[in-house]
Protein backbone atom coordinates (compact mmCIF):
# COMPACT_ATOMS: atom_id res chain seq x y z
CA UNK A 1 0.00 0.00 0.00
CA UNK A 2 1.24 3.40 -0.97
CA UNK A 3 0.77 6.08 1.69
CA UNK A 4 0.26 8.93 -0.73
CA UNK A 5 -3.10 7.83 -2.17
CA UNK A 6 -4.14 6.89 1.32
CA UNK A 7 -3.44 10.38 2.60
CA UNK A 8 -5.30 11.82 -0.37
CA UNK A 9 -8.26 9.64 0.34
CA UNK A 10 -8.43 10.77 3.94
CA UNK A 11 -8.16 14.40 2.82
CA UNK A 12 -10.91 13.97 0.26
CA UNK A 13 -13.21 12.24 2.72
CA UNK A 14 -12.68 14.96 5.34
CA UNK A 15 -13.37 17.68 2.79
CA UNK A 16 -16.52 15.87 1.72
CA UNK A 17 -17.89 15.73 5.24
CA UNK A 18 -16.86 19.29 6.06
CA UNK A 19 -18.74 20.64 3.04
CA UNK A 20 -21.68 18.38 3.90
CA UNK A 21 -21.95 19.59 7.47
CA UNK A 22 -20.75 23.23 7.35
CA UNK A 23 -24.27 24.60 6.73
CA UNK A 24 -25.54 22.60 9.64
CA UNK A 25 -22.71 23.79 11.84
CA UNK A 26 -23.28 27.41 10.87
CA UNK A 27 -26.89 27.22 12.04
CA UNK A 28 -25.73 25.96 15.40
CA UNK A 29 -23.04 28.61 15.58
CA UNK A 30 -25.30 31.55 14.72
CA UNK A 31 -27.92 30.44 17.19
CA UNK A 32 -25.44 31.58 19.85
CA UNK A 33 -24.58 34.86 18.13
CA UNK A 34 -25.43 38.06 19.98
CA UNK A 35 -26.02 40.06 16.82
CA UNK A 36 -29.35 39.41 15.08
CA UNK A 37 -27.56 39.73 11.77
CA UNK A 38 -25.60 36.83 10.35
CA UNK A 39 -23.08 39.29 8.94
CA UNK A 40 -20.89 39.40 11.99
CA UNK A 41 -20.12 37.55 15.19
CA UNK A 42 -20.47 39.81 18.19
CA UNK A 43 -20.36 37.41 21.06
CA UNK A 44 -21.93 34.37 22.73
CA UNK A 45 -25.47 34.46 24.05
CA UNK A 46 -28.30 32.17 25.07
CA UNK A 47 -30.91 34.91 24.59
CA UNK A 48 -32.40 33.43 21.42
CA UNK A 49 -33.17 30.21 23.23
CA UNK A 50 -34.82 32.18 26.03
CA UNK A 51 -36.84 34.04 23.40
CA UNK A 52 -37.81 30.78 21.86
CA UNK A 53 -39.33 29.34 25.00
CA UNK A 54 -41.24 32.54 25.62
CA UNK A 55 -42.85 32.45 22.18
CA UNK A 56 -46.21 30.85 22.94
CA UNK A 57 -47.00 30.07 19.30
CA UNK A 58 -43.76 28.15 18.87
CA UNK A 59 -44.21 26.20 22.09
CA UNK A 60 -47.79 25.41 21.04
CA UNK A 61 -46.67 24.26 17.56
CA UNK A 62 -43.94 22.17 19.16
CA UNK A 63 -46.46 20.45 21.43
CA UNK A 64 -48.70 19.63 18.47
CA UNK A 65 -45.74 18.33 16.46
CA UNK A 66 -44.71 16.00 19.27
CA UNK A 67 -48.28 14.83 19.83
CA UNK A 68 -48.77 14.15 16.12
CA UNK A 69 -45.38 12.43 15.82
CA UNK A 70 -45.97 10.09 18.76
CA UNK A 71 -49.54 9.27 17.66
CA UNK A 72 -48.37 8.67 14.10
CA UNK A 73 -45.57 6.45 15.28
CA UNK A 74 -47.87 4.30 17.42
CA UNK A 75 -50.54 4.02 14.73
CA UNK A 76 -48.10 3.18 11.95
CA UNK A 77 -46.17 0.73 14.15
CA UNK A 78 -49.37 -1.21 14.77
CA UNK A 79 -50.57 -1.11 11.16
CA UNK A 80 -47.16 -1.77 9.61
CA UNK A 81 -46.35 -4.67 11.91
CA UNK A 82 -49.75 -6.25 11.42
CA UNK A 83 -49.35 -6.00 7.66
CA UNK A 84 -45.85 -7.50 7.76
CA UNK A 85 -46.95 -10.42 9.94
CA UNK A 86 -49.92 -10.89 7.67
CA UNK A 87 -47.68 -11.50 4.67
CA UNK A 88 -46.14 -14.53 6.44
CA UNK A 89 -49.07 -16.65 5.36
CA UNK A 90 -49.57 -15.56 1.75
CA UNK A 91 -48.09 -16.83 -1.49
CA UNK A 92 -44.95 -15.29 -2.98
CA UNK A 93 -46.94 -13.63 -5.73
CA UNK A 94 -49.49 -12.18 -3.33
CA UNK A 95 -46.66 -10.88 -1.17
CA UNK A 96 -45.11 -9.07 -4.13
CA UNK A 97 -48.42 -7.40 -4.93
CA UNK A 98 -48.89 -6.32 -1.32
CA UNK A 99 -45.33 -4.98 -1.22
CA UNK A 100 -45.99 -2.89 -4.31
CA UNK A 101 -49.21 -1.40 -2.98
CA UNK A 102 -47.57 -0.77 0.40
CA UNK A 103 -44.68 1.21 -1.02
CA UNK A 104 -46.80 3.22 -3.46
CA UNK A 105 -47.49 6.13 -1.04
CA UNK A 106 -43.74 6.77 -0.93
CA UNK A 107 -43.59 7.15 -4.71
CA UNK A 108 -46.58 9.48 -5.14
CA UNK A 109 -45.28 13.09 -5.21
CA UNK A 110 -46.06 14.75 -1.92
CA UNK A 111 -47.76 17.71 -3.56
CA UNK A 112 -50.19 15.40 -5.34
CA UNK A 113 -50.67 13.31 -2.22
CA UNK A 114 -51.39 16.46 -0.22
CA UNK A 115 -54.03 17.68 -2.69
CA UNK A 116 -55.76 14.30 -2.83
CA UNK A 117 -55.79 14.00 0.95
CA UNK A 118 -57.19 17.50 1.17
CA UNK A 119 -60.05 16.58 -1.18
CA UNK A 120 -60.63 13.27 0.57
CA UNK A 121 -60.83 14.67 4.09
CA UNK A 122 -62.99 17.57 2.93
CA UNK A 123 -65.40 15.12 1.35
CA UNK A 124 -65.46 13.17 4.63
CA UNK A 125 -66.05 16.46 6.44
CA UNK A 126 -63.20 15.74 8.83
CA UNK A 127 -62.04 18.86 10.68
CA UNK A 128 -58.44 19.68 9.73
CA UNK A 129 -56.04 19.46 12.60
CA UNK A 130 -54.67 16.75 14.84
CA UNK A 131 -56.68 13.87 13.36
CA UNK A 132 -55.97 14.62 9.70
CA UNK A 133 -52.30 15.22 10.50
CA UNK A 134 -51.95 11.83 12.20
CA UNK A 135 -53.82 9.99 9.45
CA UNK A 136 -51.85 11.58 6.62
CA UNK A 137 -48.49 11.14 8.35
CA UNK A 138 -49.30 7.50 9.02
CA UNK A 139 -49.92 7.08 5.32
CA UNK A 140 -46.23 7.50 4.56
CA UNK A 141 -44.88 6.10 7.84
CA UNK A 142 -46.62 2.71 7.59
CA UNK A 143 -44.52 1.65 4.54
CA UNK A 144 -41.28 2.25 6.47
CA UNK A 145 -42.45 0.18 9.41
CA UNK A 146 -43.73 -2.50 7.05
CA UNK A 147 -40.42 -2.75 5.16
CA UNK A 148 -38.25 -2.80 8.29
CA UNK A 149 -40.37 -5.32 10.15
CA UNK A 150 -40.68 -7.55 7.11
CA UNK A 151 -36.90 -7.60 6.69
CA UNK A 152 -36.54 -8.77 10.26
CA UNK A 153 -39.30 -11.37 9.86
CA UNK A 154 -37.46 -12.86 6.90
CA UNK A 155 -34.41 -13.38 9.09
CA UNK A 156 -36.30 -15.52 11.57
CA UNK A 157 -35.51 -19.18 11.10
CA UNK A 158 -38.67 -20.91 9.86
CA UNK A 159 -37.94 -23.92 12.04
CA UNK A 160 -38.26 -21.76 15.16
CA UNK A 161 -41.86 -21.07 14.25
CA UNK A 162 -42.38 -24.72 13.39
CA UNK A 163 -40.86 -25.70 16.73
CA UNK A 164 -43.36 -23.47 18.53
CA UNK A 165 -46.19 -25.05 16.55
CA UNK A 166 -44.81 -28.47 17.31
CA UNK A 167 -44.68 -27.73 21.04
CA UNK A 168 -48.37 -26.95 21.03
CA UNK A 169 -48.61 -23.20 20.47
CA UNK A 170 -51.66 -21.86 18.63
CA UNK A 171 -51.21 -19.16 15.98
CA UNK A 172 -51.83 -16.21 18.28
CA UNK A 173 -49.52 -17.71 20.89
CA UNK A 174 -46.74 -18.00 18.33
CA UNK A 175 -47.19 -14.34 17.39
CA UNK A 176 -47.26 -13.27 21.02
CA UNK A 177 -44.47 -15.38 22.44
CA UNK A 178 -42.11 -15.86 19.52
CA UNK A 179 -42.62 -13.47 16.61
CA UNK A 180 -43.31 -10.21 18.47
CA UNK A 181 -40.37 -10.53 20.87
CA UNK A 182 -38.06 -11.34 17.98
CA UNK A 183 -39.15 -8.41 15.83
CA UNK A 184 -39.56 -5.93 18.72
CA UNK A 185 -36.20 -4.21 18.10
CA UNK A 186 -37.22 -3.57 14.48
CA UNK A 187 -40.61 -2.26 15.53
CA UNK A 188 -38.95 0.15 17.98
CA UNK A 189 -36.41 1.37 15.43
CA UNK A 190 -39.15 1.79 12.85
CA UNK A 191 -41.30 3.72 15.35
CA UNK A 192 -38.44 6.08 16.08
CA UNK A 193 -37.94 6.57 12.38
CA UNK A 194 -41.65 7.32 12.07
CA UNK A 195 -41.32 9.96 14.80
CA UNK A 196 -38.44 11.57 12.94
CA UNK A 197 -40.25 11.50 9.60
CA UNK A 198 -43.43 12.93 11.07
CA UNK A 199 -41.57 15.70 12.94
CA UNK A 200 -39.79 16.57 9.75
CA UNK A 201 -42.69 16.76 7.34
CA UNK A 202 -43.60 20.12 5.82
CA UNK A 203 -45.45 19.56 2.57
CA UNK A 204 -48.25 17.26 3.69
CA UNK A 205 -48.55 19.08 7.01
CA UNK A 206 -49.08 22.37 5.21
CA UNK A 207 -52.19 20.91 3.58
CA UNK A 208 -53.42 19.14 6.67
CA UNK A 209 -52.83 21.70 9.39
CA UNK A 210 -55.91 23.36 10.84
CA UNK A 211 -56.31 27.01 11.86
CA UNK A 212 -55.36 26.27 15.46
CA UNK A 213 -53.04 23.35 14.93
CA UNK A 214 -49.86 24.07 13.05
CA UNK A 215 -46.85 21.78 13.35
CA UNK A 216 -43.45 23.22 14.10
CA UNK A 217 -41.89 22.88 10.62
CA UNK A 218 -44.91 24.55 9.04
CA UNK A 219 -44.63 27.37 11.54
CA UNK A 220 -40.90 27.75 10.89
CA UNK A 221 -41.72 27.98 7.23
CA UNK A 222 -44.19 30.80 7.79
CA UNK A 223 -41.70 32.59 10.09
CA UNK A 224 -39.17 32.50 7.27
CA UNK A 225 -41.33 34.82 5.21
CA UNK A 226 -40.31 37.63 7.51
CA UNK A 227 -36.67 36.64 7.27
CA UNK A 228 -34.26 34.38 9.08
CA UNK A 229 -33.99 35.43 12.67
CA UNK A 230 -31.53 33.93 15.13
CA UNK A 231 -34.59 32.53 16.87
CA UNK A 232 -35.07 30.23 13.91
CA UNK A 233 -31.44 29.23 14.17
CA UNK A 234 -31.97 28.33 17.79
CA UNK A 235 -35.10 26.39 16.94
CA UNK A 236 -33.37 24.50 14.15
CA UNK A 237 -30.51 23.65 16.46
CA UNK A 238 -32.93 22.12 18.94
CA UNK A 239 -34.70 20.17 16.21
CA UNK A 240 -31.32 18.97 14.99
CA UNK A 241 -30.30 17.79 18.45
CA UNK A 242 -33.65 16.11 18.88
CA UNK A 243 -33.29 14.24 15.59
CA UNK A 244 -29.77 13.12 16.45
CA UNK A 245 -30.95 11.79 19.78
CA UNK A 246 -33.72 9.80 18.10
CA UNK A 247 -31.44 8.38 15.42
CA UNK A 248 -28.74 7.57 17.98
CA UNK A 249 -31.27 5.82 20.15
CA UNK A 250 -32.56 3.69 17.28
CA UNK A 251 -28.98 2.74 16.37
CA UNK A 252 -28.44 1.73 19.96
CA UNK A 253 -31.52 -0.50 19.94
CA UNK A 254 -30.63 -2.33 16.75
CA UNK A 255 -27.01 -2.78 17.84
CA UNK A 256 -28.06 -4.21 21.15
CA UNK A 257 -30.53 -6.62 19.58
CA UNK A 258 -27.88 -7.77 17.10
CA UNK A 259 -25.48 -8.59 19.90
CA UNK A 260 -28.12 -10.49 21.77
CA UNK A 261 -28.79 -13.15 19.22
CA UNK A 262 -25.76 -13.88 17.17
CA UNK A 263 -26.32 -17.62 17.11
Amino acid at each position, binding site marked *: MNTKPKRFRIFYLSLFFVILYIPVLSVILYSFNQSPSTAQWTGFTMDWYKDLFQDRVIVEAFKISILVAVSTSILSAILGTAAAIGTLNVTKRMEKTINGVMILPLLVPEVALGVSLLLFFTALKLPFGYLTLVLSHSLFCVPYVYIMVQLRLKEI*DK*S*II*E*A*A*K*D*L*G*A*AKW*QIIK*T*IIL*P*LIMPSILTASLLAVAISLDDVVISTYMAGPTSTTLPVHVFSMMRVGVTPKINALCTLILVGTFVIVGFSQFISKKSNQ*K*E*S*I
Partner: protein
Amino acid sequence: MQAPLLQLRTINKYYGRSHILKDISFDIMDGEFLTLLGPSGCGKTTILRCIAGLEDINSGDILLKGRSIKDLAPNKRNVNTVFQNYALFPHLNVYDNVAYGPRVKKSMSEKELRKRVADVMELVQMSGYEERMPHQLSGGQRQRIAIARALINEPDILLLDEPLGALDLKLRKYMQTELAQLQKQTKTTFVYVTHDQEEALNMSDRIVVISEGELQQMGSPREIYNTPANLFVADFIGDRNIKKVQLLEKNQEYCKVMLGRSIIDIKCSECVEGPYSTGETTILAIHMDKMRISCDEIPNSLSGEVRLIHYAGSQIRTEVDVDGEIITVVEYQRNNCDYEIGDKVSVSWEESGAVLLPMEEDAGESNA
Protein backbone atom coordinates in the same frame (compact mmCIF):
# COMPACT_ATOMS: atom_id res chain seq x y z
CA MET B 1 -49.14 -58.98 19.91
CA GLN B 2 -49.76 -55.38 20.89
CA ALA B 3 -51.28 -52.89 18.49
CA PRO B 4 -48.86 -50.52 16.77
CA LEU B 5 -48.54 -47.03 18.24
CA LEU B 6 -48.40 -45.28 14.90
CA GLN B 7 -49.51 -46.57 11.52
CA LEU B 8 -48.64 -45.03 8.20
CA ARG B 9 -50.98 -46.20 5.48
CA THR B 10 -50.05 -45.78 1.80
CA ILE B 11 -48.92 -42.22 2.18
CA ASN B 12 -48.34 -40.19 -0.95
CA LYS B 13 -46.93 -36.72 -1.08
CA TYR B 14 -46.29 -34.43 -4.02
CA TYR B 15 -44.44 -31.14 -4.24
CA GLY B 16 -45.88 -29.64 -7.35
CA ARG B 17 -45.34 -32.35 -9.93
CA SER B 18 -42.60 -34.29 -8.17
CA HIS B 19 -43.68 -37.37 -6.29
CA ILE B 20 -41.88 -37.22 -2.95
CA LEU B 21 -43.41 -40.14 -1.06
CA LYS B 22 -44.69 -43.19 -2.89
CA ASP B 23 -47.15 -45.45 -1.05
CA ILE B 24 -45.23 -45.42 2.22
CA SER B 25 -46.72 -47.84 4.75
CA PHE B 26 -45.23 -49.06 7.99
CA ASP B 27 -46.05 -49.42 11.67
CA ILE B 28 -44.21 -48.06 14.66
CA MET B 29 -44.41 -50.05 17.88
CA ASP B 30 -44.72 -48.52 21.33
CA GLY B 31 -41.36 -47.93 22.94
CA GLU B 32 -39.14 -48.77 20.00
CA PHE B 33 -36.24 -46.88 18.50
CA LEU B 34 -37.03 -46.72 14.82
CA THR B 35 -34.68 -45.17 12.30
CA LEU B 36 -35.56 -43.83 8.87
CA LEU B 37 -32.40 -44.33 6.86
CA GLY B 38 -31.68 -43.15 3.34
CA PRO B 39 -29.52 -40.87 1.24
CA SER B 40 -30.24 -37.15 1.35
CA GLY B 41 -33.29 -36.12 -0.59
CA CYS B 42 -34.91 -39.56 -0.32
CA GLY B 43 -37.95 -38.24 1.56
CA LYS B 44 -37.14 -39.44 5.05
CA THR B 45 -37.40 -35.97 6.59
CA THR B 46 -40.67 -35.44 4.75
CA ILE B 47 -42.07 -38.56 6.41
CA LEU B 48 -41.07 -37.12 9.77
CA ARG B 49 -42.69 -33.79 8.97
CA CYS B 50 -45.88 -35.55 7.88
CA ILE B 51 -46.02 -37.36 11.22
CA ALA B 52 -45.42 -34.08 13.06
CA GLY B 53 -48.09 -32.37 10.99
CA LEU B 54 -45.76 -29.79 9.48
CA GLU B 55 -46.58 -31.15 6.02
CA ASP B 56 -49.92 -32.32 4.65
CA ILE B 57 -50.18 -35.65 2.88
CA ASN B 58 -51.91 -35.95 -0.48
CA SER B 59 -53.33 -39.39 0.11
CA GLY B 60 -53.18 -42.15 2.70
CA ASP B 61 -53.67 -41.94 6.42
CA ILE B 62 -51.70 -41.64 9.64
CA LEU B 63 -53.12 -43.35 12.72
CA LEU B 64 -51.86 -42.62 16.21
CA LYS B 65 -53.14 -45.16 18.73
CA GLY B 66 -55.71 -46.22 16.14
CA ARG B 67 -57.09 -42.74 15.52
CA SER B 68 -56.45 -40.71 12.39
CA ILE B 69 -54.34 -37.62 13.03
CA LYS B 70 -53.85 -36.65 9.42
CA ASP B 71 -56.10 -33.59 9.64
CA LEU B 72 -54.91 -32.45 13.06
CA ALA B 73 -52.75 -29.31 13.35
CA PRO B 74 -49.24 -29.91 14.73
CA ASN B 75 -50.16 -28.36 18.06
CA LYS B 76 -52.95 -30.90 18.49
CA ARG B 77 -50.78 -33.98 17.95
CA ASN B 78 -49.01 -35.53 20.87
CA VAL B 79 -45.72 -35.87 19.03
CA ASN B 80 -42.72 -33.62 19.36
CA THR B 81 -39.78 -32.91 17.11
CA VAL B 82 -36.09 -32.28 17.70
CA PHE B 83 -35.10 -30.18 14.71
CA GLN B 84 -31.91 -30.56 12.75
CA ASN B 85 -30.66 -27.11 13.77
CA TYR B 86 -32.30 -27.45 17.21
CA ALA B 87 -34.50 -24.36 16.59
CA LEU B 88 -34.18 -23.08 20.14
CA PHE B 89 -35.96 -19.79 20.76
CA PRO B 90 -33.08 -17.30 20.71
CA HIS B 91 -34.81 -14.71 22.89
CA LEU B 92 -35.66 -17.10 25.72
CA ASN B 93 -33.27 -18.59 28.24
CA VAL B 94 -32.87 -22.32 28.65
CA TYR B 95 -35.51 -22.57 31.36
CA ASP B 96 -38.12 -20.70 29.31
CA ASN B 97 -37.23 -22.72 26.22
CA VAL B 98 -37.80 -25.99 28.04
CA ALA B 99 -40.92 -24.69 29.77
CA TYR B 100 -42.43 -23.44 26.50
CA GLY B 101 -44.56 -26.48 25.69
CA PRO B 102 -46.33 -26.83 29.05
CA ARG B 103 -46.79 -23.06 29.23
CA VAL B 104 -48.56 -22.62 25.90
CA LYS B 105 -50.70 -25.66 26.66
CA LYS B 106 -51.27 -24.45 30.22
CA SER B 107 -50.96 -28.07 31.28
CA MET B 108 -49.41 -27.49 34.69
CA SER B 109 -48.91 -24.89 37.38
CA GLU B 110 -45.65 -22.92 37.53
CA LYS B 111 -44.69 -24.82 40.67
CA GLU B 112 -45.23 -28.18 39.06
CA LEU B 113 -43.49 -26.91 35.95
CA ARG B 114 -40.38 -25.97 37.91
CA LYS B 115 -40.10 -29.53 39.13
CA ARG B 116 -40.67 -30.99 35.67
CA VAL B 117 -38.06 -28.73 34.09
CA ALA B 118 -35.59 -29.74 36.80
CA ASP B 119 -36.37 -33.39 36.05
CA VAL B 120 -35.81 -33.20 32.30
CA MET B 121 -32.75 -31.02 32.73
CA GLU B 122 -31.30 -33.73 34.94
CA LEU B 123 -32.30 -36.35 32.39
CA VAL B 124 -30.28 -34.62 29.67
CA GLN B 125 -27.52 -33.75 32.16
CA MET B 126 -27.90 -30.01 31.82
CA SER B 127 -28.87 -29.07 35.39
CA GLY B 128 -27.50 -25.66 36.29
CA TYR B 129 -27.77 -24.20 32.80
CA GLU B 130 -31.31 -22.86 33.24
CA GLU B 131 -30.32 -19.19 33.13
CA ARG B 132 -28.11 -19.41 30.04
CA MET B 133 -29.21 -18.04 26.70
CA PRO B 134 -29.10 -20.40 23.70
CA HIS B 135 -26.22 -18.50 22.09
CA GLN B 136 -24.12 -19.15 25.17
CA LEU B 137 -24.33 -22.91 24.66
CA SER B 138 -22.23 -25.24 22.54
CA GLY B 139 -23.74 -27.38 19.80
CA GLY B 140 -23.95 -30.48 21.98
CA GLN B 141 -25.57 -28.52 24.79
CA ARG B 142 -28.15 -26.96 22.48
CA GLN B 143 -28.91 -30.43 21.28
CA ARG B 144 -29.65 -31.59 24.82
CA ILE B 145 -31.86 -28.59 25.49
CA ALA B 146 -33.79 -29.25 22.28
CA ILE B 147 -34.37 -32.82 23.46
CA ALA B 148 -35.38 -31.65 26.93
CA ARG B 149 -37.78 -29.12 25.43
CA ALA B 150 -39.48 -31.89 23.48
CA LEU B 151 -39.41 -34.56 26.20
CA ILE B 152 -41.04 -32.37 28.86
CA ASN B 153 -44.30 -32.70 26.93
CA GLU B 154 -44.20 -36.47 27.39
CA PRO B 155 -44.95 -37.07 23.71
CA ASP B 156 -46.21 -40.40 22.42
CA ILE B 157 -43.45 -40.20 19.85
CA LEU B 158 -40.28 -38.17 19.76
CA LEU B 159 -39.21 -37.32 16.21
CA LEU B 160 -35.53 -36.59 15.70
CA ASP B 161 -34.41 -35.05 12.41
CA GLU B 162 -30.69 -35.77 11.96
CA PRO B 163 -30.02 -34.32 15.40
CA LEU B 164 -26.34 -35.24 15.38
CA GLY B 165 -25.59 -33.91 11.91
CA ALA B 166 -24.04 -30.64 13.08
CA LEU B 167 -21.76 -32.16 15.72
CA ASP B 168 -18.17 -33.26 15.29
CA LEU B 169 -17.32 -36.93 15.00
CA LYS B 170 -16.27 -37.55 18.60
CA LEU B 171 -19.27 -35.83 20.11
CA ARG B 172 -21.51 -37.61 17.63
CA LYS B 173 -20.32 -41.03 18.78
CA TYR B 174 -20.81 -40.01 22.38
CA MET B 175 -24.28 -38.62 21.75
CA GLN B 176 -25.29 -41.83 19.96
CA THR B 177 -24.83 -43.78 23.16
CA GLU B 178 -26.49 -41.03 25.16
CA LEU B 179 -29.54 -40.95 22.91
CA ALA B 180 -29.96 -44.70 22.94
CA GLN B 181 -29.71 -44.69 26.74
CA LEU B 182 -32.15 -41.81 27.03
CA GLN B 183 -34.60 -43.70 24.89
CA LYS B 184 -34.45 -46.80 27.10
CA GLN B 185 -34.67 -44.65 30.23
CA THR B 186 -37.72 -42.66 29.19
CA LYS B 187 -39.38 -45.57 27.34
CA THR B 188 -40.43 -43.03 24.73
CA THR B 189 -40.85 -44.11 21.14
CA PHE B 190 -38.10 -42.51 19.05
CA VAL B 191 -38.35 -42.02 15.32
CA TYR B 192 -34.92 -41.02 14.15
CA VAL B 193 -33.95 -39.73 10.74
CA THR B 194 -30.40 -40.09 9.48
CA HIS B 195 -28.35 -40.73 6.37
CA ASP B 196 -25.56 -42.22 8.47
CA GLN B 197 -25.82 -46.02 8.33
CA GLU B 198 -23.44 -46.50 11.23
CA GLU B 199 -25.64 -44.32 13.44
CA ALA B 200 -28.69 -46.26 12.34
CA LEU B 201 -27.12 -49.68 12.91
CA ASN B 202 -25.79 -48.66 16.33
CA MET B 203 -28.87 -47.17 17.87
CA SER B 204 -32.01 -48.60 16.37
CA ASP B 205 -34.33 -51.44 17.26
CA ARG B 206 -35.61 -51.35 13.71
CA ILE B 207 -34.56 -49.56 10.55
CA VAL B 208 -36.66 -48.41 7.62
CA VAL B 209 -34.56 -47.92 4.51
CA ILE B 210 -35.93 -45.37 2.06
CA SER B 211 -34.77 -44.37 -1.37
CA GLU B 212 -36.39 -41.95 -3.80
CA GLY B 213 -39.60 -41.83 -1.79
CA GLU B 214 -40.03 -45.58 -1.69
CA LEU B 215 -39.70 -47.95 1.22
CA GLN B 216 -36.91 -50.38 0.38
CA GLN B 217 -36.71 -52.56 3.45
CA MET B 218 -37.76 -52.64 7.05
CA GLY B 219 -36.15 -54.78 9.72
CA SER B 220 -33.72 -55.09 12.58
CA PRO B 221 -30.21 -53.72 12.03
CA ARG B 222 -29.00 -57.31 11.74
CA GLU B 223 -31.53 -58.20 9.06
CA ILE B 224 -30.83 -55.03 7.13
CA TYR B 225 -27.11 -55.63 7.32
CA ASN B 226 -27.04 -59.31 6.53
CA THR B 227 -30.02 -59.88 4.28
CA PRO B 228 -30.67 -56.83 2.15
CA ALA B 229 -33.97 -56.95 0.32
CA ASN B 230 -32.61 -55.52 -2.87
CA LEU B 231 -29.60 -54.13 -4.62
CA PHE B 232 -30.12 -50.62 -3.26
CA VAL B 233 -30.03 -51.75 0.35
CA ALA B 234 -27.09 -54.05 -0.34
CA ASP B 235 -25.14 -51.19 -1.85
CA PHE B 236 -26.19 -48.56 0.69
CA ILE B 237 -25.57 -50.52 3.89
CA GLY B 238 -22.03 -51.63 4.55
CA ASP B 239 -19.22 -51.96 2.04
CA ARG B 240 -19.91 -54.75 -0.36
CA ASN B 241 -18.45 -56.23 -3.47
CA ILE B 242 -21.33 -56.20 -5.90
CA LYS B 243 -20.84 -58.40 -8.97
CA LYS B 244 -22.96 -59.79 -11.76
CA VAL B 245 -22.92 -63.58 -11.73
CA GLN B 246 -24.43 -66.39 -13.78
CA LEU B 247 -26.81 -68.71 -11.92
CA LEU B 248 -25.91 -72.28 -12.90
CA GLU B 249 -27.84 -74.44 -10.54
CA LYS B 250 -30.24 -74.04 -7.66
CA ASN B 251 -31.25 -76.56 -5.06
CA GLN B 252 -32.69 -76.51 -1.54
CA GLU B 253 -29.53 -75.33 0.16
CA TYR B 254 -27.13 -73.87 -2.33
CA CYS B 255 -27.06 -71.79 -5.42
CA LYS B 256 -24.20 -72.52 -7.77
CA VAL B 257 -23.03 -69.37 -9.52
CA MET B 258 -20.24 -68.45 -11.86
CA LEU B 259 -18.12 -65.34 -11.41
CA GLY B 260 -15.67 -64.95 -14.23
CA ARG B 261 -14.33 -68.50 -14.60
CA SER B 262 -14.80 -69.52 -10.95
CA ILE B 263 -17.80 -71.56 -9.91
CA ILE B 264 -18.87 -71.07 -6.30
CA ASP B 265 -21.70 -72.06 -3.97
CA ILE B 266 -23.77 -69.49 -2.10
CA LYS B 267 -25.92 -70.62 0.80
CA CYS B 268 -29.55 -70.15 -0.20
CA SER B 269 -30.93 -69.21 3.21
CA GLU B 270 -29.05 -65.96 2.82
CA CYS B 271 -30.43 -65.30 -0.62
CA VAL B 272 -33.24 -62.97 -1.39
CA GLU B 273 -36.09 -64.90 -2.87
CA GLY B 274 -36.70 -64.09 -6.43
CA PRO B 275 -37.82 -65.65 -9.62
CA TYR B 276 -34.36 -66.87 -10.46
CA SER B 277 -34.02 -69.53 -13.05
CA THR B 278 -30.82 -71.21 -14.04
CA GLY B 279 -28.84 -69.44 -16.69
CA GLU B 280 -30.04 -66.05 -15.55
CA THR B 281 -27.77 -63.22 -14.49
CA THR B 282 -28.13 -62.23 -10.83
CA ILE B 283 -26.24 -60.05 -8.41
CA LEU B 284 -23.80 -61.38 -5.84
CA ALA B 285 -23.12 -59.05 -2.93
CA ILE B 286 -20.45 -59.90 -0.36
CA HIS B 287 -19.44 -57.76 2.62
CA MET B 288 -15.83 -56.72 2.14
CA ASP B 289 -15.04 -57.25 5.81
CA LYS B 290 -16.44 -60.78 5.86
CA MET B 291 -13.93 -62.02 3.32
CA ARG B 292 -10.61 -63.70 3.95
CA ILE B 293 -7.49 -64.10 1.87
CA SER B 294 -5.42 -67.28 2.05
CA CYS B 295 -2.38 -68.38 0.14
CA ASP B 296 -3.41 -72.02 -0.20
CA GLU B 297 -6.11 -73.29 -2.48
CA ILE B 298 -9.30 -73.81 -0.49
CA PRO B 299 -12.65 -75.20 -1.61
CA ASN B 300 -15.46 -72.84 -2.58
CA SER B 301 -13.30 -69.80 -3.05
CA LEU B 302 -12.30 -67.36 -5.75
CA SER B 303 -8.74 -67.43 -6.90
CA GLY B 304 -7.02 -64.36 -8.18
CA GLU B 305 -4.00 -62.15 -8.09
CA VAL B 306 -3.28 -59.45 -5.50
CA ARG B 307 -3.34 -56.09 -7.23
CA LEU B 308 -3.17 -53.53 -4.46
CA ILE B 309 -2.63 -53.53 -0.70
CA HIS B 310 -3.70 -50.45 1.19
CA TYR B 311 -3.10 -49.99 4.90
CA ALA B 312 -5.80 -47.73 6.32
CA GLY B 313 -5.27 -47.49 10.05
CA SER B 314 -6.56 -50.60 11.72
CA GLN B 315 -7.68 -52.27 8.53
CA ILE B 316 -6.01 -53.62 5.45
CA ARG B 317 -7.81 -53.18 2.14
CA THR B 318 -6.66 -55.58 -0.51
CA GLU B 319 -7.79 -55.61 -4.10
CA VAL B 320 -7.74 -58.98 -5.77
CA ASP B 321 -8.12 -59.44 -9.51
CA VAL B 322 -10.39 -62.42 -10.12
CA ASP B 323 -10.58 -63.06 -13.85
CA GLY B 324 -10.71 -59.35 -14.57
CA GLU B 325 -13.17 -58.56 -11.77
CA ILE B 326 -11.77 -56.57 -8.86
CA ILE B 327 -12.76 -57.92 -5.44
CA THR B 328 -11.98 -55.73 -2.43
CA VAL B 329 -11.24 -57.46 0.87
CA VAL B 330 -11.09 -55.66 4.18
CA GLU B 331 -9.15 -57.47 6.91
CA TYR B 332 -8.24 -56.35 10.38
CA GLN B 333 -5.15 -58.53 10.52
CA ARG B 334 -3.21 -60.80 8.23
CA ASN B 335 -4.87 -64.16 8.68
CA ASN B 336 -3.09 -67.03 7.11
CA CYS B 337 -0.31 -65.79 4.96
CA ASP B 338 1.87 -62.90 4.00
CA TYR B 339 0.95 -62.02 0.46
CA GLU B 340 2.50 -59.37 -1.75
CA ILE B 341 1.28 -57.64 -4.85
CA GLY B 342 1.28 -60.14 -7.71
CA ASP B 343 0.81 -63.23 -5.52
CA LYS B 344 -1.80 -65.82 -6.37
CA VAL B 345 -4.32 -66.10 -3.50
CA SER B 346 -7.70 -67.60 -2.68
CA VAL B 347 -10.52 -65.43 -1.43
CA SER B 348 -13.15 -67.04 0.81
CA TRP B 349 -16.02 -65.58 2.83
CA GLU B 350 -18.29 -66.20 5.75
CA GLU B 351 -21.51 -67.71 4.51
CA SER B 352 -23.64 -65.04 6.18
CA GLY B 353 -21.70 -62.31 4.40
CA ALA B 354 -22.78 -63.23 0.90
CA VAL B 355 -26.19 -62.79 -0.68
CA LEU B 356 -27.70 -63.23 -4.09
CA LEU B 357 -30.04 -60.54 -5.30
CA PRO B 358 -32.35 -60.34 -8.27
CA MET B 359 -31.03 -58.32 -11.18
CA GLU B 360 -32.55 -54.86 -11.50
CA GLU B 361 -33.05 -52.99 -14.72
CA ASP B 362 -30.58 -50.21 -14.19
CA ALA B 363 -28.25 -52.17 -11.95
CA GLY B 364 -24.73 -51.14 -12.76
CA GLU B 365 -21.63 -52.38 -11.06
CA SER B 366 -21.45 -49.59 -8.60
CA ASN B 367 -18.10 -50.43 -7.09
CA ALA B 368 -16.23 -51.92 -9.97
